[in-house]
């Protein structure tokens, strides 16, 4: 039986084939998929905010921030046997759900999340093989470690694979 592992908002998890991993209703959040090309051990993080420097919380949730979610996900992948040098990344999300005339920084959170995720992946030398970011629509994404494909469903735009 293939299972679908669910990842919630500000959450992360790992998966091994033939199971798949999924997160629903990504808006300005970014779904980051990291997978080991050789062992096919894969993981997904649902990132809400660009930087943990903004954090005003005593015990922060690492999965929430781009700069802490990626290292936390790598650690979890490594504990399952993945190797950092064979990790590849795919991204989706970072939409601007509402447009307002008053340019508030909070409203630009989607693009800022995407930038922060890319910066962190670049710093860790993890190549981004595919991405579907920006736009104005929410996404539901599901990654299949066997095919290494990320399926993306968007309201009114159907489903595609990257």
């Amino acid at each position, binding site marked *: 039986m293939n299972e679908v592992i669910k990842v919630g908002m*500000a959450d992360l998890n790992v998966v091994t084939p033939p199971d798949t991993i999924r997160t629903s*209703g*990504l808006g300005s959040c970014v779904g980051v998929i990291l997978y080991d090309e050789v062992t096919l051990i894969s993981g997904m993080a649902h990132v809400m905010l660009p930087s943990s420097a903004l954090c005003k*919380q005593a015990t922060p949730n690492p999965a929430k921030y781009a700069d802490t979610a990626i290292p936390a996900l790598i650690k979890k992948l490594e504990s399952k046997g993945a190797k950092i040098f064979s990790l590849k990344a795919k991204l989706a999300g970072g939409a601007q759900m*509402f447009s307002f005339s008053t340019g508030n920084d909070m409203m630009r959170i989607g693009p800022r999340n995407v930038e922060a995720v890319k910066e962190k992946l670049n710093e860790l030398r993890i190549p981004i093989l595919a991405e579907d970011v920006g736009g104005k629509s929410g996404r539901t994404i599901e990654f299949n470690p066997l095919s290494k494909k990320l399926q993306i469903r968007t309201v*009114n735009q159907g489903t595609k694979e990257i």
Partner: protein
Amino acid sequence: MDFLHKLRPYHLDVLKEIGNIGAAHAATALSELLNKQIDMSVPDVRLVSFQDLPEQVGGADTEVAAIFLRVEGEAPGSMFFISKIEDMEQLVRHLTKNKSFQLKQPPYDELGLSAFQEVGNILAGSYLSSFSDFTKLMLQPSVPGFSVDMTGAILSYGLIPLSEVGDYAIVIDTEIRELNREKAHVSGHFFYLPDPDSFEVIFAALGVETNE
């Protein structure tokens, strides 16, 4: 969120009362606009984790029609009016007399969209002005934005200010619906999500103790 540890049941009751007053005015305004009887539920005030919030509104990838606006002023926050796509279509058709208005596939009819936005303006404006009268706090709604999309994608937007301090949101949720439900009926949820720093301001304005 330190504040959450100080939260007592009577604090939730105060927030419930705010939801009650606000939604009652919003329901009256909608009732006048549509010339129909509108009923509202007793507000539900709850502390929910981000993970659970979209599930409580029918699932993170359920498609809904939503109006979102920021509350600006002394107690900032986010406000949503979320309803089923069909219900919002009914409402706009009723207002514009355009029977073919639809929200299932863009492009949407411009006039219908501005009616949709105007509904948001009226609902939020009446909710906030009564809230403002009650608390004597200065509050103004921003111009509403609208979206037809997945619940999770829409709600996460309003959670951003809260997400900087914790993983929980205090949600003031009121359901409003048309009384005569045999034919076309309209129903939706009103969510008010005060920003973290706004709680102390709201309680202070109402003379409710938060430091004990």
